[in-house]
């Protein structure tokens, strides 16, 4: 990895534009895209099926949360389904059995996912690289078996007919339009948190760990603590997506905690662009659209997913947004690309 990137990321005194690694034109282009994107998201339910859009937003947030770890810290977790699906179970359970309002339900889901992240991260950061991936996968499988046997998850049936409830006690979310804008708000809050996080001094240190772990250690950073912090943060945000998804679909099942789900979120991130802020949103969009499209046909999604995985790894490692940044137009607009 280039040392140029490393030196800019560890210098905390650089200006804001230098810190985000973008020029003034890129910032303008970014702002323009952001504005267009926001308007599109606000008017989207008039043109598309809202449930589909909500699913897309949940998975987009999930993928961005995952990318926080893979793209900005360089850790490949193969167990993120635990946080997504775990939070879905927690949120579904507390809103259905305890009757809490949806926002409290999601917050409990987030807290639960963060706790799970703390435990899994505690074990996983003891090893690096490939071992990290295998440990997270194994611990996540353990959580899967726990969910299979625990009583509150209702085993194979899952938690069914979860009420969406009233937001803050008075906005009825059974109404699809209200629900959509609630999900959009959750998504935007999550994205702002991620954006703020990766541009904070904490995020800078994470990038320096990604670029050169040994050097970060020699500079006096307690790398293990930063990695754990990033892991918990990523888990909590994945939980936010999972809890919201449970309310959208009004159920939480074993599918959300299985290893296939962990694989899916990796694919979304890889497809969109590892280490780009908005790439995973596009990746999630593509994967969710593909799944929707194939849901009615006999052809199994797994084959397509597998082939897309292989093609991405072999030919398309920068992902959609990464390729755009590296393209002539992207460079003209002043975007920098890495990897």
């Amino acid at each position, binding site marked *: 990895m280039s040392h140029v990137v490393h030196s800019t990321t560890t210098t905390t005194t650089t200006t804001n534009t230098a810190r985000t690694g973008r020029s003034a034109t890129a910032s303008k282009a970014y702002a323009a895209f952001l504005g267009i994107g926001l308007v599109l998201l606000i008017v989207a339910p008039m043109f598309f099926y809202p449930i589909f859009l909500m699913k897309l937003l949940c998975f987009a947030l999930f993928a961005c949360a995952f990318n926080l770890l893979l793209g900005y810290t360089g850790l490949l977790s193969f167990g993120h389904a635990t946080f997504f699906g775990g939070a879905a179970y927690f949120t579904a359970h507390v809103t259905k059995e305890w009757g809490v309002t949806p926002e409290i339900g999601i917050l409990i889901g987030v807290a639960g996912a963060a706790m799970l992240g703390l435990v899994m991260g505690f074990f996983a950061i*003891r090893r690096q*690289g*490939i071992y990290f991936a295998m440990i997270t996968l*194994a*611990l996540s499988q353990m959580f899967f078996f*726990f969910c299979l046997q625990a009583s509150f998850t209702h085993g194979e049936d899952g938690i069914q007919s979860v009420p969406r409830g009233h937001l803050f006690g008075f906005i009825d979310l059974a109404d699809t339009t209200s629900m959509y804008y609630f999900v959009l708000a959750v998504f935007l809050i999550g994205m702002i948190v991620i954006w703020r996080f990766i541009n904070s001094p904490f995020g800078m240190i994470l990038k320096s760990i990604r670029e050169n772990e040994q050097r970060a250690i020699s500079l006096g950073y307690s790398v293990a603590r930063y990695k754990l912090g990033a892991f918990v943060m990523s888990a909590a945000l994945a939980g936010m997506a999972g809890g919201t998804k449970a309310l959208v679909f009004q159920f939480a099942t074993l599918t959300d905690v299985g290893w296939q789900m962990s694989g899916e979120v990796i694919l979304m991130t890889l497809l969109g662009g590892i280490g780009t802020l908005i790439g995973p949103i596009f990746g999630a969009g593509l994967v969710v659209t593909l799944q929707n499209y194939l849901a009615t046909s006999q052809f199994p999604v797994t084959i397509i997913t597998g082939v897309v*995985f292989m093609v*991405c*790894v*072999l030919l398309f490692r920068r992902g959609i947004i990464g390729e755009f940044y590296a393209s002539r137009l992207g460079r003209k607009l002043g975007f920098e690309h890495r990897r």
Partner: protein
Amino acid sequence: MTMIFGIPLQAFMGQLLIGLINGSFYALLSLGLAVIFGLLRVINFAHGAQYMLGAFVAMLMLQYFGINYWFALILAPIVVGLFGAVIERLLLSRLYKLDHLYGLLFTFGLALTIEGTFRYLYGSSGQPYAPPPALTGATNLGFMFLPNYRGWVVVVSLIACIGTWLLIEKTKLGAYLRAATENPTLVQAFGVNVPMLLTLTYALGAGLAAFAGVLAAPVYQVSPLMGSNIIIVVFAVVVVGGMGSIMGAILTGYMLGIAEGLTKVFYPEASNIVIFVIMAIVLLIRPAGLFGRDA
């Protein structure tokens, strides 16, 4: 009836045997993973799929060509090994220069594709594969009945494990392999065809997985899902053992299989997570794994 720790001896020995059989498969599979990782620095996620392929090839050979178990035990690993060699040559070899994680992601995609294809063609439910007539029936050992086929699995997988160990530690080819693990550039400079060695290694690993698959076919049912169920457990085994040593991978496989079997006797609810719990404990005490050198 004889009792041991308040459990009937019969049940105790039965679970111990199941543990030993599972352990045999864990050992064979983690051995293959360790061999591939040692040289290619790739964690072969498709290992489970190759195990499943072995079982399927054996079953299909019987269905379409009437090839019996004994020939399948030799032919299926060759077929799957060749398939592995093609994949390595054409695709996987392009990824060696990159971060090791890409190898993991590529083989994950490969595993999904293979599993998805077989699920599409044969459905998710398992299909029986009869053990060969010579190995049906059971032997009375005095304290328990040992199904002959299960005894055979334990013995033959032990032989396969020791054979692979001897191949790598005691032969000239093994010496090349070990040398290339340490320093591929230097070995290539000595005129050894290292890319060919890499292909051979991957084919050997895939073949071992297929061999385990054929052995497993009469014990479990032949199902497209049999690979992904076992591969995650094998990953935990590999984390516990550390991939630095071949013998370490074999021993850890058997140990954890037996630990799982014993858990089934004393606390059945925890039997499918006990290996993961052991993994967590080992990570606390010895992060590099029981036999691992810190990588």
